[in-house]
């Protein structure tokens, strides 16, 4: 374990020499990176690079074969109640009868507790507003378009009033309008919560992004590398829900670059 760095910003996510294998297949090898509280970070990489593995590890759904992971200062499993997770799609049965507000209320679920309190109802309406889906609250979830469903899943994650919001491929198969609304939501959250967006688009990221981490660039033993970005004025705004940044894959920022060189390894 490392001590907190001597800076005034807290670390939201820290991977310390984390390795992970599926049987013989080595997916991550010595991944070492950290994300500061309040940052908007992008985790990018081609399909099969290990992004989902990084997600599973930080949500505590899988355990590393070596190394340590700290999320909000806690082991991932203990930090879960403060994480808002937006999966790529809910693995649900299209015939499942459920309303939008009932889906969002799941974000308030705690272990085996049965009752929802007044504060839960308030958090649900706030989350519906934040994710710009309040007008859909009483609609059946199955009647929504793909983009609307994704924003409902964002509301479900926000209902937990998370300190860390994790979104897996939030814009895959999303229409431009929904994408614009989603990034407006994320823009309004920036600074209040740490946001981690996972995407297979390795070329460009939203201009909201503070830090870009690329998974899977070191051959067989993959790791996570921090890249530089620069404004990409030639890219149409509607493609990235607003202005975009181009990822410079030929650059590699040192792990401590964000802390003025103070973050020790």
């Amino acid at each position: 374990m490392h001590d907190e760095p001597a800076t005034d910003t807290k670390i939201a996510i820290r991977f310390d020499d984390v390795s992970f294998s599926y049987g013989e297949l080595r997916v991550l090898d010595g991944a070492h990176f950290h994300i500061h509280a309040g940052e908007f970070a992008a985790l990018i990489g081609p399909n099969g690079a290990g992004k989902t593995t990084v997600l599973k590890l930080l949500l505590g759904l899988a355990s590393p074969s070596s190394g340590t992971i700290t999320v909000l200062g806690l082991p991932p499993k203990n930090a879960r109640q403060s994480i808002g997770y937006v999966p790529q799609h809910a693995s649900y049965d299209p015939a499942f009868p459920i309303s939008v507000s009932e889906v969002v209320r799941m974000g308030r679920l705690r272990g085996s507790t049965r009752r929802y309190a007044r504060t839960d109802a308030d958090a649900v309406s706030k989350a519906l507003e934040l994710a710009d889906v309040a007008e859909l609250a009483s609609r059946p979830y199955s009647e929504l378009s793909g983009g609307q469903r994704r924003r409902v899943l964002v509301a479900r994650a926000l209902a937990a009033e998370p300190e860390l919001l994790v979104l897996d491929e939030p814009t895959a198969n999303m229409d431009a309008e929904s994408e614009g609304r989603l990034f407006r939501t994320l823009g309004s959250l920036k600074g209040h919560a740490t946001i981690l967006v996972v995407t297979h688009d390795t070329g460009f990221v939203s201009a909201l992004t503070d830090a870009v981490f690329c998974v899977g660039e070191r051959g067989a033993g993959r790791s996570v590398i921090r890249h530089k970005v620069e404004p990409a004025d030639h890219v149409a705004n509607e493609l990235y829900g607003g202005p975009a940044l181009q990822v410079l894959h030929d650059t590699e920022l040192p792990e401590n670059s964000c802390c003025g060189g103070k973050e020790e390894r």
Partner: protein
Amino acid sequence: MNGYVSALFDPSMPFVRNALIAGLLSSILFGALGAVVTVKRIAGLAGAISHAVLGGIGMALFLSATGVVPGLPPIVGAFVFAVIAAGIIGFVSLKAKQREDTVINAVWAIGMSVGVLFIAKTPGYADPMSYLFGNILLVSAKDLAMLAILDAAVVLLAWRFYPQIEASAFDEEFARVRGVPTDAIFMATLAVTAIAVVLLQTFVGLVMVIAMLTLPSGTAGFVSRNLAGMMVGGAVMSAAFTVTGLAASWALDMPAGAVVVVVAGAVFLAASAVAAIGARTRRRKAGETGPRRPA
């Protein structure tokens, strides 16, 4: 129909009344458990458990008739096989997902075959058909009491853990992130299904258990707004199918269980057709009035 109603109140025919009470009590089970089985899409798993139970019934009949374990009731064999089948299927489903289909089919086929083999070698006559399709007119007062206890347990579990059941059926990964013990809920669902199959095999029959676990709640699913509505709706549908089926079978002198399932299946198919046509019409309307893409 009049004949059925007067038979219900005929003191010399308690079995007619017992059959109706059994049908209504099992409706509660079919509603609550059936909704979970349907939305979690584990009807195939439930089917394998229920068919594997025939192996246990056959083995118990054989052991009892040959005097190895005198007086061993078939329900004991059924229970043992149900627990083994649920255990194997649950383990494979949680730990070795890639083999799930094959293992489920193996449990299904081996269980039934073992049952047929044992019944064939059992001295005297035993008819596998009566276990596959049941005989609702054989219900005893003790069966009714056990069914009522199972109903109470299932309703209590569904009420107490409703948010967890709902969340893990809707999106298991998210539920796990929220700290819901999804594996335990899955195993509990399989266990309750196994117990329900064992209790219902005498009168509803092994094949019909699966039909009634899926058809009424599937039908209710078309009109329900949430999982709780599907549970209640499934129970109401199941009760309606049972009463209609029992009355029709009495009037037409046909096997009660089969008539109940035919009624349930016909209503489900009709509802599916209506829902499909309705969805198509809605899409067409939306297509006509919705924004057109620029060419």
